[in-house]
């Protein structure tokens, strides 16, 4: 097992009597574009919330970059290099597009409340520098023309894109995308696939993608992990996963008399 990358070791979480995720192990090596799929309620988003520290696993450990991240708070995990987007877009709605991205440089700030008050030349240089980097990011992702709009007034597709850009501003090594294609039409989905590949190419990130749309997942992922009822039932390349009987059964149902014991 290599030291870097993301490792889930037999991660389990129970909410009262409900085991939402059970003994899931997975590895996402640096630079890999991985997919996490499964039917509704399989626990995909819960896995995301476990990785990002929203929930703490009941059992098992999570490692990133060779260090345990289990039990850290979300902002500490982001500081370790894991950024995410949300299934139900969570932008800072009243802030401008520009500020949404700018605020995400937070981890790399040298200023604090004191410097905001005293406004030394170093403070101004940093502000200037951050504005520059924000503009550059917005430019790359074609959000520059709406940079002064409040985030909540953007069209849906732009909001999705802005969420990804905002996550990139934290300068992650691993980007978690929670159903980025949800609610998109086929043309937008093609755009999104290009966008994700572009990001991986340009920033040399590992990306873990939760997605329902099989075209998107099969089209771009190098490796796919499949969940069903909180358990991992398969892992492999898109071609392997497509042929896997357990996966087919999970999505389409079992032939009578052929159910595996669960």
């Amino acid at each position: 097992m290599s030291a870097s990358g993301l490792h889930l070791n037999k991660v389990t979480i129970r909410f009262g009597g409900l085991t939402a995720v059970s003994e899931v192990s997975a590895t996402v090596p640096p630079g890999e574009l991985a997919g996490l799929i499964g039917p509704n309620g399989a626990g995909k988003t819960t896995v995301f919330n476990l990785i990002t520290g929203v929930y703490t696993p009941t059992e098992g450990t999570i490692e990133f970059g060779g260090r345990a991240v289990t039990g850290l708070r979300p902002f500490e995990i982001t500081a370790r290099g894991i950024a995410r987007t949300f299934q139900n877009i969570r932008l800072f709605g009243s802030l401008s597009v520009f500020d949404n991205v700018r605020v995400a440089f937070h981890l790399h700030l040298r200023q604090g409340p004191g410097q905001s008050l005293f406004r030394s030349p170093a403070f101004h240089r940093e502000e200037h520098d951050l504005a520059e980097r924000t503009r550059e990011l917005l430019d790359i992702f074609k959000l520059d023309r709406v940079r002064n709009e409040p985030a909540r007034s953007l069209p849906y597709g732009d909001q999705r894109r802005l969420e990804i850009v905002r996550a990139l501003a934290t300068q992650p090594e691993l980007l978690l995308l929670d159903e980025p294609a949800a609610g998109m039409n086929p043309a937008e989905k093609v755009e999104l696939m290009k966008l994700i590949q572009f990001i991986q190419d340009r920033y040399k990130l590992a990306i873990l993608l939760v997605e329902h749309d099989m075209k998107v997942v099969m089209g771009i992922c190098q490796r796919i992990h499949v969940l069903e009822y909180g358990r991992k039932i398969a892992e492999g390349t898109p071609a392997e996963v497509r042929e896997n009987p357990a996966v087919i059964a999970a999505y389409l149902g079992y032939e009578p008399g052929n159910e595996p014991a669960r």
Partner: protein
Amino acid sequence: MPSWLNRSQLVLVAALLAAGLAQFFSNHLDSYVLSVAMGVGINIILASSLNLINGFTGQFSLGHAGFMAVGAYTSAVLTGKLASQLNPLFGGQVHLLFPFALVVGGLVAAIAGGLVGAPSLRLKGDYLAIVTLGFGEIIKVIFQNVDYVGGAKGLNAIPDYSDLFWVFGTTSITVYTVWALLNSTYGRGFLAVADDEISAEAMGLNTTRYKMVAFVVGAFFAGVAGGLFAHLNNSINPSGFDFNKSIEIVVMVILGGMGRHTGVVLAAILLTVLTELLRRFGDYRMVIYSLLLIVLMLTRPQGLFIWPLGNTWWASLKSRWPFGTSARHPNP
């Protein structure tokens, strides 16, 4: 980069000079007008510091009068009962003792803010409001029962050290502080925390620390305002810092538009002057005041001074205004 940012500090210095100048010519002013003017300044401090907590950071606090009381009592004790011990320290100079007392009052209030905030900032919305409300009442009852500070009678014969310079100097510093804190990349974090705590955490912001900073800074200025208030009115008693006082400040913040810097300052001015103007109606004063509030809240729930961006003279004025573009967009 020689930008408008540096200009902001110049504006602060100019405001301080103006406050000094105003004090210099203040003996030409009617003492009633003078005390109303200082009341306006104190309310601006209270409202903009509460706005940092309630508006910008989105943590609904109802305990501002409590922090004000802590500052008022602390500074009044320092300039009163302890003055004889402290005076040698400052060579008997009142204009050194007074600011010292104000700052210490603010610091004690800030500590109180930290103590209340640490456990209660995990709570959200109504729950936080209830806890801070409880804190305000506890503070009131404590002062009512401590004989050293006069119990329910409160403290009297507090020296009248508050003048235009101290009040408006402090007002300028408060307005500048809130503005400067917000207008930086660090400060945008307060707004982010207010908008969505979960996603602020996910972007690497320590939301607990942000809320604490807002709470402690807000409490500090409430404490300073309390000190100014005590040395303006010459007497304080616990019931002056009750729930109603907190609500009065909350109303200024809501009327000015939660998280709108200039709007809240204007609302503080408007409401203070309004209560004075309504005095001529005697017993009907509070009735008229309440009716006005109801009408205002019904007609302008988003805040008195908020217009959709870019539609009015106000927007165009605002775009050239060095203060108060809080970067928060009004609801569509």
